């Protein structure tokens, strides 16, 4: 996707991403030339069986791993060609993360867990705390602002984790199995929160095994053996359709309109 000046408008672009472990002759290829674009305001569900390369792919997309080959552009910066300090700076202004296990500091209150991430970017702590409180209040946690993670339910902790991910107004949030530890209604409310931010222009890449999350997605990308096996609309973009079948299409070249998938081909 390019804007009218020809520059890329995608939040993220990955081209020909290859990743191998180890050294010859014992090397293992985890990713085999993955291409992926993430547009602004899009909730993309990344699915695939264990060992398909999902974690490796998001680690590369976030600049936590360097691809063996290929190019990754995050927020307009080619992170695959940058050194560690430069990639760190790009992550700081572009990325938010949500993890299955929350990874909240047990010693900090809900407010401070959110505020300290904002303070890392140079925001004075007083201002950061005000923003954190406002955000957590919006997330229905006004009665839990000064509680530590150990005093919160799993759903409340995940809300804090989401608030921490979006408090810096990142262009892209990567959520790794954010609902796996949550019961059905709590998982649904977490997804609602994420959708709210997608509507406001934030892109979300959501890694999951849970096919139910496809209902909330704009797009589904399925990985299999280190390759993009399917790339198509999710149910949020096509509420009357199905998450697979006619709406799923082979990955490249990606068109603006879905084309027939394997079943329709």
């Amino acid at each position: 996707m390019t804007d009218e000046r020809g520059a890329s408008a995608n939040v993220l672009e990955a081209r020909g991403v290859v990743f191998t472990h180890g050294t010859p002759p014992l090397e293992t290829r985890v990713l085999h030339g993955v291409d992926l674009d993430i547009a602004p305001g899009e909730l993309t569900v990344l699915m695939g069986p264990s060992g398909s390369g999902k974690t490796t792919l998001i680690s590369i997309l976030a600049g936590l791993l360097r691809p063996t080959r290929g190019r990754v552009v995050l927020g307009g910066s080619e992170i695959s060609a940058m050194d560690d300090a430069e990639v760190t700076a790009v992550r700081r202004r572009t990325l938010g993360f949500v993890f299955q296990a929350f990874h909240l500091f047990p010693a900090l209150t809900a407010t401070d867990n959110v505020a300290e991430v904002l303070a890392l970017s140079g925001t004075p702590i007083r201002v950061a705390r005000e923003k954190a409180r406002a955000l957590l209040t919006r997330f229905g946690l006004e009665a839990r602002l000064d509680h530590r993670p150990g005093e919160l339910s799993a759903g409340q902790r995940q809300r804090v984790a989401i608030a921490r991910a979006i408090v810096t107004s990142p262009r892209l949030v990567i959520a790794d199995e954010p609902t796996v530890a949550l019961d059905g209604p709590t998982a649904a409310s977490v997804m609602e929160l994420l959708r709210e931010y997608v509507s406001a222009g934030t892109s979300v890449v959501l890694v999951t095994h849970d096919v139910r999350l496809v209902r909330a997605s704009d797009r589904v990308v399925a990985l299999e053996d280190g390759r993009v096996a399917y790339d198509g609309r999710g149910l949020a973009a096509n509420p009357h359709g199905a998450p697979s079948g006619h709406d799923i299409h082979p990955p490249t070249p990606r068109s603006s309109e879905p084309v027939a998938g394997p079943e329709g081909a």
Partner: protein
Amino acid sequence: MHRIALQTLLFHRAKVAAALAGVAFATALMIIQIGLYEGLRSRASVLVNRLGGDLWIMAAGTSMVDDSELLATGAELPARAHPCVTSVRPAIVAWVPYRTPAGARHTLQLVGSDLRTAGPTHAYVPWSFAEGLPQDLLAQDRVAIDDGDLSRLGLAPPLVGSTLEIAERRVEVRGVTTGIRNVSLIPMVFADVETARTLAGAAPDGATYWLVDLADGSCGPSVARAIERDPRLDVMTREELASVTEEHVVTESGAGAALAFVALLGLVVGTVIVGQTLLSLVREHHKELGMLRAVGASRSELAQFVAWLSAFVAAMGGALGVILALLVQSGLGGRSVELHYGPGAILTGLAAVLVMCTVAGAASLASVLRLDVVKVLQ
């Protein structure tokens, strides 16, 4: 990062208490050992410094002030003849036999100085009188004793007016001092030089040391040369004799090495305790630190977490250690052990804390700098 580090420490109170105890005890131990060392040095040379004098005339080969012998008659005459010398004073430092009232035999250290010349210009021994005055010792066979050694002397208050048997001679106690002890903890007895000569078996004009006061310090070498023409004599400045005495007591006796070894042991144990605690705290937070790294914290920012943990533990543990050392000092007040805490002792103790926490933080720092974010977040 300092807020996260501080909150983390406050949250893990039990674990941190162990680290703080480690730092506090190691700091206190270091300060106390330095205090003991300084106390030992000070006690070793206290007689020399109290008696004063610019130059000390002594028997050749004297290695410390307690290691004295009677000088030949007239040893001080070259000094008296030198135009630069303003006064020459006798001093007796000798070991003398003592028999308790119950008949037990002991040894005392006898210190005699010319109390007639004592005053603002010449310091005198003894000092720190609890009962009596220096002038009370001016008559023959009068002595002062220190109240710290009464049980070993077989004595009990009231002391002034009681009679002692020293060197098979009966002397009267006319003064009681407090807190004067030598490094060997052998009881000390003080007298005017006339009485001391009698008790030490010296000639009426004899001495174990002659203390020389100079009009001009620069003529010291010339005076020393004149005296040392006699091969049986050595001359040292007061500072030199104090220094060799301290050296002998704290170094050659092994006391200094023993104190240093204990201090080092405390430092090592403290470092291990703090290192283990910090490493455990940091490892416990690898996932949270990995999350911060994922959202853009640099490696140096993660390192700051460890640095702040170490700094807080050092500051709190160090302060507790100084307080503990001061409590020990006040608890030992008046006892046979002397702790001298100069600014050097406190600063060295605090420097030790710094070294301890820096070394202890190294393993944690390495663990943070090598943090594999992808692995810890999986």
